[in-house]
């Protein structure tokens, strides 16, 4: 399976199949978006159902553009998007049921955090503004700082108050673009717990991220976007397993690389070994755990001094590309 085949990998365990009987809340059909000559989203079709869905992909994969189209901020160049069975573009009444947290950090910085949440509640025409505002601020644990100006907030505090503003009308769908940006580890855990709880109440939550680990703890299902195409969709844990199986290239420098290569080539964790132009060896392995034990063991047995051990392709892009090419 490669990107050029234009068909995403569908990974559908039993729970996924059962979930597919639930009506989708978001339907994206053959949607594309291009800006001049640049194709940002390319013929993407997907369905999102209640629960927590992670929209994953490296920076520039088209996640934000896709989310903007789903929430109606951007018009698709082609294809169709429906939310609750209705077109979302120029359909403001739908926003009573949707909460969107855009990627950008801009807010009305001259307001207090509470005033900002209250503004959103009023714009959503929430019947009991005071109660809704207090509930939303409590959900993000910002009671102590609610009366401070947003301009004085740290990035993480601002993100939490923006999240409160998105949840103030108790929406059925939450679309969150990089919501954990700027938050500290404790806030991430709290955020993840909150998302799991909201999803368990039957809401549809879609979280975009370029960091796999951010989504790992919460998403039931992921959509993997690479180069504007939907490269894979399905259960997160199955995809994670594929990640564990992916081959790694490790570069090793040693006092005698040829002898070390000869000693390692018979190891089960080693698939192949090659020399690079700088006098190092590059080892291809599908089991990094075993390889990291085998290298020092072989070096010690052969009396070879190791000078460097570097993973060569551990970048996020290589991980996504690997998944996309499966």
């Amino acid at each position, binding site marked *: 399976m490669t990107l050029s085949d234009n068909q995403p990998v569908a990974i559908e365990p039993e729970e996924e199949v059962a979930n597919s009987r639930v009506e989708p809340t978001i339907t994206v059909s053959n949607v594309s978006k291009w800006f001049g000559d640049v194709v940002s989203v390319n013929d993407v079709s997907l369905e999102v159902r209640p629960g927590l869905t992670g929209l994953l992909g490296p920076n520039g994969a088209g996640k934000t553009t896709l989310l903007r189209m789903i929430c109606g901020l951007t018009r698709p160049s082609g294809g169709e998007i429906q939310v609750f069975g209705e077109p979302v573009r120029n359909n403001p009444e739908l926003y009573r049921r949707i909460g*969107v947290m*855009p990627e950008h950090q801009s807010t*009305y910085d*001259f307001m207090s955090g509470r005033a900002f949440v209250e503004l959103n509640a009023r*714009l959503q025409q929430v019947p009991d503004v005071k109660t809704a505002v207090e509930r939303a601020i409590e959900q993000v644990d910002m009671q102590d700082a609610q009366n401070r100006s947003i301009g004085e907030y740290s990035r993480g505090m601002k993100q939490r108050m923006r999240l409160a503003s998105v949840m103030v009308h108790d929406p059925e769908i939450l679309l969150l673009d990089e919501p954990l940006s700027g938050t500290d580890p404790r806030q991430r855990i709290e955020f993840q717990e909150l998302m799991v709880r909201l999803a368990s109440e039957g809401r549809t939550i879609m979280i975009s991220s370029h960091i796999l680990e951010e989504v790992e703890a919460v998403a039931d299902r992921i959509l993997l976007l690479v180069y504007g195409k939907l490269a894979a969709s399905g259960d997160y844990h199955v995809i994670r397993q594929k990640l564990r199986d992916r081959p790694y290239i490790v570069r090793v420098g040693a006092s005698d690389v040829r002898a070390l290569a000869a000693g390692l080539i018979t190891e089960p964790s080693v698939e192949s070994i090659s020399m690079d132009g700088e006098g190092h060896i590059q080892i291809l392995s599908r089991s990094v755990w075993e390889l990291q034990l085998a290298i020092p063991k072989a070096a010690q047995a052969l009396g070879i001094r190791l000078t460097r051990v570097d993973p060569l392709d551990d970048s996020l892009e290589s991980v996504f590309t690997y998944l996309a090419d499966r």
Partner: protein
Amino acid sequence: MLTIYKLSLTQMLRPKRLLILLFIASVPVALSVVAAIFPPDTEDLVSFRDDFLMGPIVISAVLPIITVVLATASLGHEIEDQTMTYLFLKPVSRWGIILPKFLATITVAGVVVIGSGVLTTVIVPEGSVTTSAAAAVGLAVGVLAYTSIFTWAGLMTSHALALGLVYVFVWEAAIVGFLQGVRWLSIRHYTEATIHGFDDIQFAGDAATLSLPQALSAAGIVVVLFVALTIRRLTRMDVA
């Protein structure tokens, strides 16, 4: 709509910007105070008021500068700093966003500009209630027309303020001054013609070339046309 109106007023009444606008608006008022303290001959006083304070300063400078600054920012700044998404993602129609923003601009610009013009006519001796009322109505027409054009311009380009100033100081002040046939395309002349229609003020000794009905009709067309264009633009545009 009231929420967006209040939000827009709060944004426009930020202290720094307000102080600058009030400073600009106070220039003709301060000059009229000087004229009241050291009055010249009656004829010179009327000429000073109409040909210097009201024409070149209030109508040609205070009115367009204040209105263009506020109107270009009312939607343009929110698009630029991306806070507009908070309004777009709410159960509010696009005209429900534009209308309160338009009204907020008219409120602030109207109070400051009309206040400046009326105070100028009141303070300078030889004025009358009719003169002040004519100034108020004429300036209101000007505020409405400039606001509608430059709210739209703020959506179309991030250089709307610069373009607005070019329109005011190159088109209206220079080109229209020489080519009287294109006065139909000058907000400044709608304003002057409206004031002239209510009171017989002759700006710079030049009788208004548009009648009152013509000026009001032209201004009305401008307002309707540009409000419609703004709604159309806001409905079709993609927001970052």
